């Protein structure tokens, strides 16, 4: 389909025609009559053609005037379209950002749902958790005893001394019976329990069943009282009857829900976290 010529092209065409006609007319007028060609067009015809082209130009100019008005409307429409394009691009950016945020939120929510599902499948009773919490806090591993101060040799972890006297270093474990330990060191340690001490309660003579290392050093010796025997600075060693009572009990006793132990646990748990970071 041949496209129609534009108004501009038609105007150029008419102007070119007028130029040719005016040139021919001027040549005809300037040439002497003797030199005129026989087939030369008449000047009257040329002038009529020129007038016709001029009227054609005037019509085209009227069309151009109308097109100018339409062009102004189109320019306004184009500006509005560009403005909408900018808004659409801005909206697209915002939607993309929202999609990213929501994808992240959905992913995290799915992870949490998976964790909830796992927790529901592997249920743990609250009593068991509380028992473990009591056990941990009873050994003063989460908070220092109330009477602990700077310079106190007690630590929340087994010291070198305690480890040397432990069953791990000796390679044997105590029997469950009431018999004393096989090793001489332990026997010495436990023999101290039978001696009267004004500072410690010794209610438990048999080696206890322990799973925690620092529980091995339940006998408590004051520094200087037993020459030749290294002192124990067990974290559980305490001059307070309440705490020594706690540390003398075995795990099984502690799990029975000893009320005083619970009080001690509550007291110790209420303390702020231990800031003891120095080692011996």
């Amino acid at each position: 389909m041949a496209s129609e010529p534009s108004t501009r092209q038609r105007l150029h065409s008419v102007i070119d025609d007028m130029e040719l006609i005016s040139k021919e007319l001027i040549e005809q007028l300037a040439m002497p009559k003797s030199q005129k060609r026989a087939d030369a067009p008449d000047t009257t015809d040329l002038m009529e053609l020129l007038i016709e082209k001029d009227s054609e130009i005037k019509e085209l100019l009227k069309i151009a005037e109308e097109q100018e008005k339409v062009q102004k409307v189109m320019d306004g429409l184009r500006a509005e379209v560009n403005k909408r394009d900018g808004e659409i691009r801005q909206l697209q950016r915002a939607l993309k950002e929202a999609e990213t945020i929501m994808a992240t939120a959905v992913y995290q929510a799915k992870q949490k749902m998976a964790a909830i599902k796992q927790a529901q499948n592997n249920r743990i009773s609250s009593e068991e958790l509380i028992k473990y919490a009591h056990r941990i806090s009873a050994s003063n591993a989460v908070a220092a005893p109330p009477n602990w101060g700077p310079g106190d040799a007690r630590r929340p972890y087994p010291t070198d001394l305690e480890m040397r006297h432990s069953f791990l270093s000796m390679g044997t474990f105590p029997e469950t019976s009431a018999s004393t330990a096989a090793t001489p060191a332990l026997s010495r340690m436990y023999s101290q329990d039978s001696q009267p001490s004004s500072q410690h309660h010794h209610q438990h003579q048999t080696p206890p069943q322990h799973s925690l290392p620092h529980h091995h050093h339940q006998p408590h010796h004051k520094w200087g009282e037993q020459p030749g025997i290294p002192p124990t600075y067990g974290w559980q060693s305490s001059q307070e009857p309440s705490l020594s009572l706690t540390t003398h009990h075995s795990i099984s006793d502690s799990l029975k829900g000893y009320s005083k132990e619970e009080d001690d646990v509550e007291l110790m748990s209420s303390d702020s976290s231990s800031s003891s970071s120095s080692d011996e």
Partner: protein
Amino acid sequence: MAASSAAENELNILPSVYEVMKSIEKDTNEVAQKMMELKSQFQKARECIDRLPGTQHSPEEQVRLKSVLHQQLLIKTKLLSSFKTGHHFDFDSKTNGDLSRNSMN
């Protein structure tokens, strides 16, 4: 409209042709000058035509382009209004808030 009214003066070439014809008849020395003026007049007419706004298309083509622009504007306005005010999320009432296995997968 200002361009087209200015173009009327620029494209009014007949008086210049008449001036040349008159000078030829009178056989004066101004023929060459008038010829040069006529030539410059044609040049100015061409330059004026190139400056006319909207004449790069035919009238029919221009009307078609105008309708296309109008359609574009309507579509984009409708798109923007639908995204700003409309609801784009389909809420399934069956699984809303349900923590069953199907919804967690």
